[in-house]
């Protein structure tokens, strides 16, 4: 059960973030050329891989098991609760739906407004692609490190991220209008629920909690947060939107 849940959480979280990175790179590519976009993206990807190779072992070596679980749980909770908050607001119509197509259009407009390239090297375009991949990849890297930090979970966490990378590349290559078709809002909400559940589970274990039926704890925590999110969406739908949430 835990292998499958970790795999799902890793694939989902990595997939939606990589999709956003792909949208930004495509936006730069169609306006400033594929070579510059790919070079910027490649540099961003390499920096993230280097950071993960530094952070992952340091996290495992530098602290006791309990402390590692609290740190890992905190990271997952920060991402998970934020995704959950945004997901609930989107489902209740209080926030624009998640859309990588919007990211694509925004990156395309940003790239088009950049100063012209000097010579053959388009540094401004490369910088936009780099920043997009770096920021989205940072989230992926931290989530995968956090999910894979416990014994037996590194394989599903890495497998999920690899699967997500392959899926996103396939989506980018094979489909014409992939970014409009995916139910990103629902996927992000589901991943937010899973990350929050895993974050609660790990952090509490680090604080010496014994979950009843520990094997099933991530599953019932997922159900608890899914129910909470569903009730919150219904409650928000009943109230008129406020400008802060628009």
């Amino acid at each position, binding site marked *: 059960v835990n292998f499958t849940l970790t795999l799902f959480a890793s694939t989902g979280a990595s997939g939606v973030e990589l999709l956003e990175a792909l949208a930004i790179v495509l936006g730069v590519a169609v306006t400033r050329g594929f070579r510059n976009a790919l070079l910027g993206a490649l540099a961003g990807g390499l920096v993230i891989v280097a950071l993960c190779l530094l952070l992952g072992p340091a996290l495992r070596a530098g602290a006791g098991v309990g402390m590692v679980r*609290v740190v890992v749980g*905190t990271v997952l*909770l*920060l991402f998970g*609760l*934020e995704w*959950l*908050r*945004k997901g*609930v*607001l989107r489902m209740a119509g209080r926030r624009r739906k998640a859309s990588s197509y919007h990211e694509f259009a925004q990156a395309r407009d940003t790239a088009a407004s950049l100063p012209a390239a000097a010579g053959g090297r388009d540094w401004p375009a490369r910088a936009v692609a780099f*920043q997009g991949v770096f*920021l989205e990849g*940072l*989230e992926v890297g*931290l989530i995968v490190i956090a999910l894979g930090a416990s014994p037996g979970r590194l394989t599903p966490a890495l497998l999920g991220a690899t699967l997500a990378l392959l899926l996103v590349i396939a989506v980018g290559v094979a489909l014409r209008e992939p970014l409009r078709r995916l139910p990103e809002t629902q996927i992000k909400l589901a991943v937010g629920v899973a990350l*929050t559940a895993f974050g*609660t*589970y790990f*952090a*509490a274990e680090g*604080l*010496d*909690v*014994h*979950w*009843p039926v520990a094997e099933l*704890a991530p599953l019932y*925590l997922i159900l*608890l*947060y899914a129910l*909470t999110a569903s009730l*919150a969406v219904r409650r*928000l739908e009943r*109230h008129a939107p*406020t400008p*802060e949430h628009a």
Partner: protein
Amino acid sequence: MSPLVRSMRRKLLGETRTIPLGVAAAIVLALLLEAVLPRGEWRWIGGFAFASVLITTLMLALYPKTPRRHR
């Protein structure tokens, strides 16, 4: 603050302060309860107490300025 650093901060800590503060409060509260409660009790109820604080945090982040309904 540079746009990259600002974007990184938003990525890592989110758009509101409520969530990072709530997570920090949940951990501090858990440490306090762990110190105060008998070990056995904390082990059994601690997880659900922790989850309750996190759900409260989510609710506070969702309804920061919800206007009161007048009857």
